[in-house]
């Protein structure tokens, strides 16, 4: 544990100076700044940012996590040749990656809001929900990336796997949901939809943020059911638990594969 924290600390120190990460933070800052510049209210800006965050955060976390894993192979060998156990190296590198990406995201998104929105007595709830969701998506997709990268030595295959996963969670899953809704339109589907939403971290993150905003009313009857479910403390806790489980499960699997991996 002590060793893992040390590995994480030096990984963060390295990555925070990486041009890619600065670009990532700058990207969100530029979008946030532009939204405010064109006169959007903070609540509107959050809805606009939400769609960007839900697409970009999983993709960048997955691809950056994977490339870093393969790219720092020689450095990983150096760490593994030290008197520390493999698990510390793995969790340390994961934590270092996830924390760096999360910091880039937080600074990029929160920056413009604090700049423009502070002092107006705005409700910070939606912004906090957006930040928490983004951080959890970072943790989830970095874990999935490391799972793909520990399972295969073939970069292309790992890249294919994470890109497919991203496509599945952000686009295909909603399409499949629509098919289910159309096919079974004669039945009451709300409970099923709540259940299915729990299975997709990106949808889950979307709903956690939308329910903090007035636009939830636009979701119609389903929105009301979601509100009823995820609006309660228990529902929110379940949603967060699902997101944490989405992080922990791939991470534990990856750590197990890492134990037998050759470098």
């Amino acid at each position, binding site marked *: 544990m002590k*060793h893992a924290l*040390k*590995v994480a600390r*030096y*990984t963060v*120190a*390295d*990555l925070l*100076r*990486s041009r890619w990460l600065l670009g990532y933070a700058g990207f969100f800052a530029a979008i946030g700044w532009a939204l405010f510049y064109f006169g959007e209210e903070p609540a509107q800006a959050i809805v606009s940012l939400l769609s960007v965050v839900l697409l970009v955060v999983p993709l960048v976390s997955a691809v950056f996590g994977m490339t870093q894993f393969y790219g*720092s*192979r*020689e*450095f990983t*060998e*150096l*760490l*593994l*040749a*030290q*008197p*520390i*156990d*493999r698990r510390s190296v793995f969790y340390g590198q994961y934590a270092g990656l996830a924390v760096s990406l999360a910091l880039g995201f937080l600074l990029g998104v929160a920056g413009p809001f604090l700049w423009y929105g502070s002092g107006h007595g705005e409700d910070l709830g939606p912004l906090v929900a957006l930040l928490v969701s983004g951080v959890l998506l970072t943790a989830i997709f970095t874990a999935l990336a490391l799972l793909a990268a520990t399972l295969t030595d073939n970069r292309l295959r790992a890249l294919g796997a994470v890109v497919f996963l991203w496509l599945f969670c952000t686009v295909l899953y909603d399409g499949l949901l629509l098919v289910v809704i159309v096919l079974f339109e004669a039945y009451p589907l709300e409970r099923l939809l709540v259940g299915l939403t729990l299975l997709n971290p990106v949808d889950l993150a979307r709903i956690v943020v939308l329910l903090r905003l007035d636009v939830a009313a636009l979701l119609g009857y389903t929105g009301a059911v979601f509100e009823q479910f995820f609006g309660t403390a228990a529902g929110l806790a379940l949603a967060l638990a699902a997101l944490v489980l989405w992080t922990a499960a791939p991470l534990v699997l990856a750590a197990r594969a890492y*134990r*037998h*991996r*050759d*470098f």
Partner: protein
Amino acid sequence: MITVHGLRKSFGLLEVLRRIDLAVDAGRVTAIVGPNAAGKTTFMKTLVGLVVPDGGDVRVDGVSVRRSWSYRARLGYMPQTARFPENLVLAELLAMVKDLRGTTAPYESELLRLFELGPALDRPLGVLSGGTRQKISAALALMFDPDLLVLDEPTVGLDPLSSRRFKDRLALERSRGKTILLASHVMSDLEEMSDRIVFLVEGRVFFDGSLEQIRARTGEPTLERAIARMMEGERR
């Protein structure tokens, strides 16, 4: 000091190590030679714990490398190619490794001076040349004064001066009673430094003996010719 017993390793269908048995005594320099893809690097990586064996075991002073990691406190490893976090500077890298090991590095300043790494201390590791990274790798392997040195083609990429200094340093370590395992294709280096030659071919120990034995067996005067003769013999 090191006992290798029935060591096997495959990568997919490729059998890289096929039952290697070997005992390495403390305080001696053992050279691992062999044609490309003979399994030299894989063999050394199993000692360090980077490659997980399929079968058999490697023990360092009786402790299996598969179950322990603390033995690496006594080990210095120099990989074939060294790359470090690009945005850290050398001083940070050295601090990190000392921090991870939880010890001081008695030879740090001496080795930095020997390899003239002072100017690199405050420069990002990503901009350093391959030769400089190789020298850093050598310093990292030697600076903690380990009992056991595992060196995988250590002089590749070093300029003649650095190479000379590195070899002199190894001779010093040898005289201090260190156990050294050395893989190299530079036969003159091995001739100069080794007590024993282990010749690997296709994952098996093909020959194991002293320099005199290998010369006597092949009738060749130099190690390079003797090894080349053996490799030709193996092909036929």
